[in-house]
């Protein structure tokens, strides 16, 4: 984990130039209905293969629901942004930024609680969303952003298209 000085600094100039699209969501799960059509438009625009499209939907749903439920702790009065950049024809980078208190979803202590813990470890969702993101994304990176206005969190999820 590293700390950087501003949201702008999180994205190198060459990536900023290849910024594709931004989605702004309220910090409420209902607003996630906007996510699917936004991703579908990107998939159509770039003819992203179906397996990668599935992976993008999966990782963004997990990451954004984490921000809403855990980062903002269910408080609906905030926003978060999702940016898509395409540094090259084979790579898509999604950056999720919020202004929530420090929340690193990749840290074990933030992994989702078991819904119904049992000796047989029936549900085992502890880390299930994180496990899924790690499996389906090419890379995931968390950074804490300090802006002087309380700061925020930045999760970068990268997908490399299969050759």
């Amino acid at each position: 984990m590293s700390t950087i000085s501003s949201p702008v600094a999180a994205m190198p100039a060459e990536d900023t130039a290849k910024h594709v699209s931004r989605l702004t969501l309220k910090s409420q799960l209902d607003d996630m209905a906007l996510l699917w059509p936004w991703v579908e438009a990107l998939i159509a625009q770039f003819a992203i293969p179906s397996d990668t499209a599935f992976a993008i939907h999966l990782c963004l749903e997990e990451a954004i629901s984490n921000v809403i439920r855990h980062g903002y702790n269910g408080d609906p009065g905030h926003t978060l942004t999702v940016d898509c950049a395409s540094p090259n024809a084979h790579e898509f980078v999604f950056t999720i930024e919020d202004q929530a208190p420090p929340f690193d979803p990749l840290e074990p202590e933030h992994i989702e609680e078991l819904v119904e813990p049992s000796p047989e470890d029936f549900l085992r969702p502890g880390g299930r969303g994180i496990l899924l993101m790690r499996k389906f994304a090419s890379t995931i990176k968390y950074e804490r952003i300090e802006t002087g206005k309380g700061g925020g969190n930045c999760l970068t999820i990268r997908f490399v298209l299969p050759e």
Partner: protein
Amino acid sequence: MELSTHEMDGGITRVELDGRMDIGGAAAVDMKMNLIAGSAKKLLIDLQKVTFLGSMGLRSIVIPARAVHSKGGKVVLYAPTEMVESVLKTSGIDSILPVHHDLATAIAALQ
């Protein structure tokens, strides 16, 4: 997200899910799934038409499955697509809820 049920021979309840099991889809079927789990003892969850499965969707399958297990019943998952099955395997759910691609085998596993 659509859900339909069919009663099969041998006391098997077949639940056919159709659509995206994302957060919205999970919310749409949660109550019905729990109601079905309240009465079913042999549950075949047909995933053929499930085009997406996230962790909230997993929860919508696993919680009712647990309810069936808790009263001595059985649950199998039937015919997920390759990507949906990859989600099941990554989450480890497949080790608790067996996945079958052949209907006869799925039915046999419920007997």
